[in-house]
């Protein structure tokens, strides 16, 4: 830049020319006000000066960056959500949420819209990946005991996010308006109506019918029709994503406010010598913790800690996050290229699919519903949700936080619980499939007895008893929680596999779809 004096002598046109030439640099300066992030200071301001990055801490602990700490599951889930968001918006340009027309617009997306089918495939795969990774992410948080103080509330946020992720996926399932969608949603709505089994058994349905009300609220009518479609559409594209985005914001913000990811007390010594090409900062004991100590109540997460192996988030964390994001994108687009999302015949209310199956992540529930609608549809899911939510409030132990299978019992309990968790449902299912259940043995049994004594409740009870046994044996709530959570995952797995692969027409057990009776 020329000096002021020479500048004054230049003509207006020359000044204009100078400004024009300096434009790119000047623009860069206004957009990225802190300059190139190559010092501790600029790296910090790069993070907090940016709306999208400032949810991150400016420094990240090396423990958090270890691949084994998180396996990137949270980021994969977030990435999958972003992918569904972008592809979903693209699909909305063509999708028409009205019966029959909806199906035709799906066909148009498949056959005419350039890469329409590909985009729909990406959307579908990303949604499925999101459901899988949100469950795995929860398992990670559980097994590393990351839910403990001060992260109890964030664990609850996580459970809410799990529920909303499932709801997002479920509401999207109806939109193609094909036979698969129509009957899956019919089944789903009937699961939602399951409290009626209890009110029926008690003879209360004509006075109070919460099951029917839930179903009516969900479908907006007695059957899956235009009202249900517009409801599901609105939930899928607006209401649930907004709630999800909001809760995600809270979830991320709390990670930071709760002191980053959980890590063992002795994380520093476990990390050992830092690699040479990292850019550590504050390697000496900090003179102060850089917190607004006067404003923040209680002790900040850093008080009482020694020197920490933190590195600037820019670039360490962001490269890691971007890498996981792009890897997720790669997986989604590759799956989308090789495997098409299903689209069956136009929905036909007079030709039921047999078997009509809910989306795969609800097939475990559908399996339970086949024993008792109330227990499978409402009772057990409620117990599981409450149980999951209570974990951090009951387990107040401290040993093992931030470690895989940390805490009392540890991997030992997990291994044994895996065995129990798999064996119990397989055993009970074998009995139910081979010999039937109470209804087959004593046809006159009142429904209320079947509602409370059935394979679903027995599996749940067995899990609960085993967990209580673990609490007593190890004298530790964490041991019980480890057992219960492992059992829950195993039960989910077994029931989902049975529901997906071994249930045929009329929900009868078959070893293979090849054995299904023909129409």
């Amino acid at each position, binding site marked *: 830049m020329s000096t002021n004096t020479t500048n004054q002598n230049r003509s207006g046109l020359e000044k204009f020319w100078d400004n024009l030439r300096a434009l790119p640099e000047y623009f860069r300066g206004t957009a990225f006000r802190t300059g190139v992030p190559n010092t501790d200071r600029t790296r910090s301001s790069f993070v907090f000066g940016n709306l999208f990055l400032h949810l991150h801490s400016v420094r990240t602990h090396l423990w958090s960056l270890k691949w084994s700490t998180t396996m990137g599951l949270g980021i994969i889930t977030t990435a999958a959500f972003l992918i569904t968001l972008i592809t979903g918006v693209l699909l909305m340009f063509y999708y028409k949420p009205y019966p029959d027309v909806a199906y035709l617009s799906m*066909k148009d997306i498949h056959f005419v819209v350039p*890469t329409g089918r590909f985009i729909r495939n990406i959307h579908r795969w990303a949604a499925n990946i999101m459901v899988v990774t949100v469950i795995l992410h929860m398992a990670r948080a559980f097994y590393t005991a990351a839910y403990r103080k001060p992260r109890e509330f964030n664990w609850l946020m996580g459970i809410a996010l799990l529920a909303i992720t499932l709801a997002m996926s479920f509401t999207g399932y109806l939109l193609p308006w094909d036979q698969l969608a129509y009957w899956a949603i019919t089944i789903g709505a009937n699961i939602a109506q399951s409290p009626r089994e209890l009110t029926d058994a008690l003879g209360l349905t004509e006075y109070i019918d919460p099951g029917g009300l839930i179903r009516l609220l969900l479908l907006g009518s007695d059957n899956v029709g235009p009202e249900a479609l517009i409801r599901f559409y609105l939930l899928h594209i607006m209401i649930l994503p907004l709630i999800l985005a909001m809760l995600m914001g809270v979830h991320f913000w709390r990670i930071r406010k709760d002191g980053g990811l959980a890590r063992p007390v002795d994380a520093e010594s476990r990390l050992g010598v830092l690699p040479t090409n990292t850019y550590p900062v504050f390697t000496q004991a900090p003179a102060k913790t850089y917190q607004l100590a006067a404003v923040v109540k209680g002790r900040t997460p850093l008080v009482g800690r020694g020197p920490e192996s933190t590195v600037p988030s820019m670039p360490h964390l962001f*490269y890691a996050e*971007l*890498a*996981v994001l*792009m890897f997720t*994108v790669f997986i989604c687009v590759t799956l989308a*290229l090789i495997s098409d999302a299903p*689209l069956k015949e136009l929905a036909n209310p007079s030709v039921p699919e047999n078997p009509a199956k809910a989306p795969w992540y609800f097939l475990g529930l559908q399996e339970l519903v086949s024993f008792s609608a109330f227990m499978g549809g409402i009772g057990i899911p409620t117990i599981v949700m409450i149980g999951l939510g209570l974990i951090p409030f009951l387990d107040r132990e401290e040993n093992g936080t931030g470690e895989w299978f940390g805490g009392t019992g540890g991997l030992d309990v997990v291994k044994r619980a895996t065995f129990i968790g798999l064996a119990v449902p397989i055993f009970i299912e074998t009995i139910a499939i081979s010999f039937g259940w109470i209804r087959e043995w004593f046809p006159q049994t009142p429904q209320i007895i079947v509602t409370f004594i059935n394979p679903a409740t027995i599996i749940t009870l067995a899990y609960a008893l085993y967990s209580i046994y673990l609490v007593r044996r190890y004298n530790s709530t964490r041991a019980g929680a480890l057992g219960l959570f492992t059992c829950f995952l195993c039960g989910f797995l077994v029931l989902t596999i049975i529901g997906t692969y071994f249930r045929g027409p009329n929900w009868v057990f078959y070893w293979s779809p090849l054995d299904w009776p023909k129409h």
Partner: protein
Amino acid sequence: MDKNKYLLLWSSFAAFIVLVIAALSDNYWKDWQQIQKNARADGKTIDVKLRQIVIPELNTTDRCVSCHVSMAPGEQAMTGHNALLAHKSVVHDTSSFGCTICHGGQGLATEKDDAHGNVHFWPEPMLPKEFSYAGCGTCHTPLSVPNLNTLTKGKTLIERYDCLACHRMDGRGGTIRPDGGGMEGNDLSYIGIKGYDLAWYSKHINNHNEAQTGTWRNSFGEISEDDQKNIASFLSTRIGAPKLIEAKALFNSLGCMGCHKVNGVGGDAGADLSRIGFKDPGQLDFSNVTAQHTLANWLAEHFRSPISLVAGSQMPAMGLSEKEIELLTMYVLSLRRRELPSSFSPKDRAKVIQFKEREFATDGRTLYGTFCASCHGRNGEGARYPNTQAFPAIASPDFLAIASDEFISNTIRKGRAGRRMAPWEKDGGLKPNEIEAITKHLRELGKTSFTPEITPPRWVKGDANLGSRLYKANCSGCHGLKGQGGEGPALNNKEFLGSATDTFLVQTITKGRRNTPMAGFENPSPIRQALSQKEVEAIVTHIRNWKGE
């Protein structure tokens, strides 16, 4: 961190490659794009773009013309790919009808397998080429179609009288011009729709008489009145779908409608066939069909052996020839009857649905062929299928000699409650004049007239106890201990007992029915003695004691 950088680099790079592949395959590598790129019209290339015919009233969007470009409205003949062949000339132009309304398939699709509908989850695959005429049935219902014999006769007459010398019909004939120079005769292929001068014969014969030499003199001659009628009946079926008419004529000869309803007319024992051609192959059991899994092959196999495809089916295997099976398959495939907006609803359908006009000709022979032939035999000889009751030989001269027209038409009208014979005066049954025509036709089949009885309807007064014993010994084996029927017809039947006279019964027992298991009892057989007149009357008395429950 380096690992992350490499992961970022490689996954970005790989994702980018996948995106490029997806973009290319969707935008440049599609089959229809390749076909259009290689297409040449008059040696020139054509615009590469998605082409479609949208008919909002029919709710169809047919993208078939993206590959079959020459068949699109306003396009000319092209070379470069088999798909580019032009459509043969038909009455319906593609611009106002599209493709799928006739051919079936998935018009929305832009890839071959999807478009032709040979994929899972598309309930309406394309009609196979050899059954293309079945597509007409989507909207049309050919009217007054005679039985196959009559149709073939009409066709033979047209050939025999050398009509095809001047006229074209269904792509044949019309080569000689009268007087070597004048106009050739008009095309008869669509004459059933267009109509024709009813005075054609007198004009033709005049020309013939006036001409001294030449084609009029040589190629035309007198035609008998009967033959004129046959020709007229044949011409009324020339609506541009000769193969479909032939198929329907066969249908009207096999007696299918004795059990099946089509468009509200027919029996109730079998499935309603009005929309059977739209059956979703995905919902059918193909485990006993060895041929390719198409609806046509399923139907053909079903005609060969109904019970092996539909568990518990009552339909007998009719013993049809392969040629007949092919024709029948075509006709059944044509039973589609799609919902249409009024602007697309053809007259013939309106006549059948709204005005209850007949799809079949109403001469006795066709009516018999349409409703009766499957059970009573194509010539009234009776029939017997495995696992069903035997059906009476109603053209037996022995029967016709003693059965009055009233008895026969009464039987058709009221049926036989509890047996397979339906009361045909029911809704969707036969009109009185049609029943009369069938009765007449039976007389023609059996070539026997009724000898009026001189006795009153009830005159027999025999020994009921003797009759009961004799009945038990001689009749109950076939007709049942209580006359409920079995191998033989039910006798303890209200309608039967009401209309059968004593003479009818006595004669039947005495003379029997030739060529059926019912032997005449006036003669002894190797296993029993003859019955005397008194004993026969005793049996009739015993039968008369039943009330017909």
